[in-house]
């Protein structure tokens, strides 16, 4: 039986690899741009040669090999593809809100490559997004890192298969509202949130021990040991303890951030990134010392009580204290202008161009564990690139073309207006969606837990 399982698993693994092998890779020569490499300074009048999806050469007077298209970017800016460390784009479902711990669910099973928001993100220069589980649970589901290969219809093709595993955690108002006040179970307070975490990890340690004992016994001749029952939830928690999964934790208040740092240290967990982190500035030295940093909004605040004592200077304070800091969207609209969100750190804290650009490129790449592959313009890295009219940190900047793996997926001059890949056969009249505030989906799919959709609307960050 076990052998058959292994065989099936191997087949499944093979089929996924087969699928990702179909991903398109492009070649292109971009000439005479102002190249914002992010990690290696700004190169005036420079060329970038891409071959088979990889940045082959960065320099001057490069020539296009046979069959490789040349794009003249004179007077334009070239930067690495923008990376959003917090998004819910391209997901059919966001929250499995049924238990304070749902580590077993996976966003990669929910990927929807047809969502037009992916194209709209590309039109804002975003090539990679971290498709996260929602914030209804203390330990949420596993996230997926997406590459915006718009036009692919196979979910596997827009998943960045080589990215490490990550998982969503959430502290504060959302999990206590859903479980404590919604379902009448722990946690109802920030004390309960800590208990859920510690209990969960201790249970996982026990589970690991039972398996270790069983495996030791099973290798003995003539043993009669019964195997422990497989528990996927505890398997995932064990993987977190073993450092195989990066935690991305929804958090706002300094006390809860500090709590998780302590819990992580007690359990020997070092792969930890804080998300939102509005009060991160209060514990910036601790975040810098013990974690992989924080991914924050540029200026969102006051939409709920736990973000009332926020400051738009958060990213600057974190950066000055040495924490890896990224700017994220968590929002289908905001993701369209992350370059502008990053630019706000120049008004609020005087960040340099390089610091501001890092917050949407190499820093989120570090937090997602993919900085060796993307996040800067360096030879050998994947060719995710954006051409801008105007400096990307100018309020007047307009993205012109966006490339993923050297393939152009957005061109302001050539693209059709209507980018839908799928059109509803049942809707006679196309719905007109009128703006009614921020459209974050952190609390999507928890509607049934609340009296009215309106109350959800207020609570959806």
């Amino acid at each position, binding site marked *: 039986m076990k052998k058959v399982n292994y065989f099936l698993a191997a087949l499944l693994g093979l089929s996924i690899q087969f699928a990702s092998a179909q991903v398109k890779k492009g070649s292109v020569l971009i000439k005479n741009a102002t190249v914002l490499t992010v990690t290696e300074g700004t190169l005036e009048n420079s060329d970038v040669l891409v071959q088979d999806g990889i940045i082959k050469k960065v320099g001057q007077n490069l020539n296009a090999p046979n069959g490789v298209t040349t794009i003249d970017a004179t007077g334009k800016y070239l930067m690495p593809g923008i990376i959003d460390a917090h998004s819910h784009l391209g997901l059919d479902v966001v929250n499995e809100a049924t238990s304070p711990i749902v580590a077993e669910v996976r966003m990669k099973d929910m990927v929807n490559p047809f969502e037009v928001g992916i194209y709209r993100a590309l039109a804002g220069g975003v090539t990679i997004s971290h498709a996260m589980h929602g914030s209804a649970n203390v330990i949420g589901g596993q996230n997926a890192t997406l590459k915006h290969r718009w036009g692919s219809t196979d979910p596997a093709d827009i998943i960045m298969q080589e990215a490490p595993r990550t998982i969503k955690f959430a502290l504060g108002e959302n999990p206590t509202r859903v479980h404590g006040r919604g379902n009448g179970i722990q946690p109802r307070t920030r004390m309960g949130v800590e208990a859920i975490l510690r209990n969960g990890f201790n249970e996982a340690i026990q589970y690991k021990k039972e398996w270790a004992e069983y495996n030791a016994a099973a290798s003995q001749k003539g043993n009669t040991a019964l195997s422990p029952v497989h528990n996927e939830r505890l398997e995932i928690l064990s993987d977190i303890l073993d450092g195989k999964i990066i935690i991305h934790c929804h958090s706002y208040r300094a006390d809860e951030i500090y709590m998780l740092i302590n819990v992580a240290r007690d359990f020997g967990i070092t792969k930890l990134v804080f998300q939102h982190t509005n009060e991160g500035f209060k514990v910036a030295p601790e975040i810098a010392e013990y974690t992989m940093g924080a991914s924050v909004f540029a200026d969102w605040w006051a939409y709920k009580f736990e973000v009332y004592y926020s400051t738009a200077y958060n990213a600057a304070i974190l950066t000055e204290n040495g924490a890896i800091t990224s700017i994220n969207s968590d929002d289908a609209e905001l993701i369209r202008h992350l370059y502008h969100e990053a630019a706000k750190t120049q008004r609020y804290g005087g960040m340099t161009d390089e610091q501001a650009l890092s917050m949407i490129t190499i820093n989120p790449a570090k937090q997602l564990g993919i900085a060796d592959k993307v996040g800067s313009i360096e030879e050998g890295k994947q060719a995710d690139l954006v051409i801008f009219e105007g400096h990307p940190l100018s309020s*007047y900047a307009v993205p012109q073309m966006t490339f993923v793996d050297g393939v152009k997926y957005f061109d302001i001059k050539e693209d059709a207006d209507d980018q839908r890949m799928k059109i509803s056969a049942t809707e006679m009249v196309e719905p007109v969606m009128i703006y009614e505030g921020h459209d974050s989906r952190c609390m999507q799919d928890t509607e049934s837990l609340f009296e009215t959709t309106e109350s959800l609307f207020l609570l959806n960050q």
Partner: protein
Amino acid sequence: MKRLTKTFFAFLLALLPVMAMAQIDGEFIKPRPGKFLLQNATVVTITKGVLNNTSVLIEDGKIKEVGANISADGAEVIDCTGKFIYPGMIDGGTKLGLVEVSSVPETVDYAEIGNFSPNMQALTAVNPNSVAIPVTRVSGVTTVLTVPAGGLFPGTAALINLNGYTPDQMYAGFKGIVMNFPNSGRRGRFDRRSDEDIKKANEKALKDANDLWDNAKSYNKLIADGAKLDYYPEMAQLAKATTGELPLLIEVNAASDILAAIKWVEGKGAKVIFTGVSEGWRVADSIATAKIPVITGPIQALPTRESDRYDTPYANAGKMAKAGVKVAIRTDDQENVRNLPFFAAFAAAYGMGKDEAWKAVTINPAEIFGLADQYGSVEAGKVANLIVADGDPFETKTNVMHVFIEGYRMPLSNRQIRLYQEFLDRSPGLKVN
């Protein structure tokens, strides 16, 4: 009794050293009125071009003089060499001051119960001490329309300056009755009604609007004829819109609704302003022909339809302006009204152009509100709402260096800045344990 008094004084005396020791650190900088001479700047007047090496004199809350050689006599001189002076920006639609924390209902004061409550006064509920107000004004936004929401006639909006200790001190001279024009589209992601239900609701809302309007007209007629009517404050307020005494701010967004609204206002004799107008670009010529001014926004928004080009919300304001519509820009926000200059920049970059975008946050809203003689440009005689910056205030790199509201020099601080000052270099820092 005497003894008691004695004991009391002894007690007070004992307290004295404690009171003397109690101290309050730091000086609180208050808004400060005065005579100020902003010397030798580049003045972007909006209405009279760009003036180099020009000074602006502020006195008695007004712009006293704009010129090259102004006497500094008795004035506090602020050297503005290499700096730019602009009029304070006006946000044509916000909920600023009406809400403190969106998710805490006790702090949300923009939506009263009921479908017909035009007599609800936004100005009454404005909290002059809202933390968001100083957060907003350091960006150079000095004046906002603050607007009630919810229902068919949710209330009366008011224009406020972002300085003052009472709503009346803040009031900037414009009020308008808000109408949410019956919406034939979906209300957003969570609206799961069927097409049929939406249509029915839309028809009912239109009928309600017509009935109420007719009643308001009858109300006026009966009053004029000397009839004695029951106390009906809602109707008394709406009646002011039917005569044009108060303008009607019609919130309308979908293209078909905009066309329906244009038809609806025809011959009604109301002073009409359209707000929202997110699909205005689809019917821009019709709006221009109807000569109805528009307050549009937010600019940073998603397209209204899946099939729309990604940049339609950025380009909307510019397309309407090009068609001849008078356009003002709003954020439709509460805590982040500070983003108004950036919304204007996006509109500028996607077709509106910088000059027109500046007008859309200064002179155009002033004209739409009937206050162009007081606000919206740097001209002698106008209210001294001014900003001084070291560059283009639409750019995030630019520092806004001074803000004047009604001649008051505003402190450029707020809670977000104070948190920055406290926590940038925290002490104690990291305590290794």
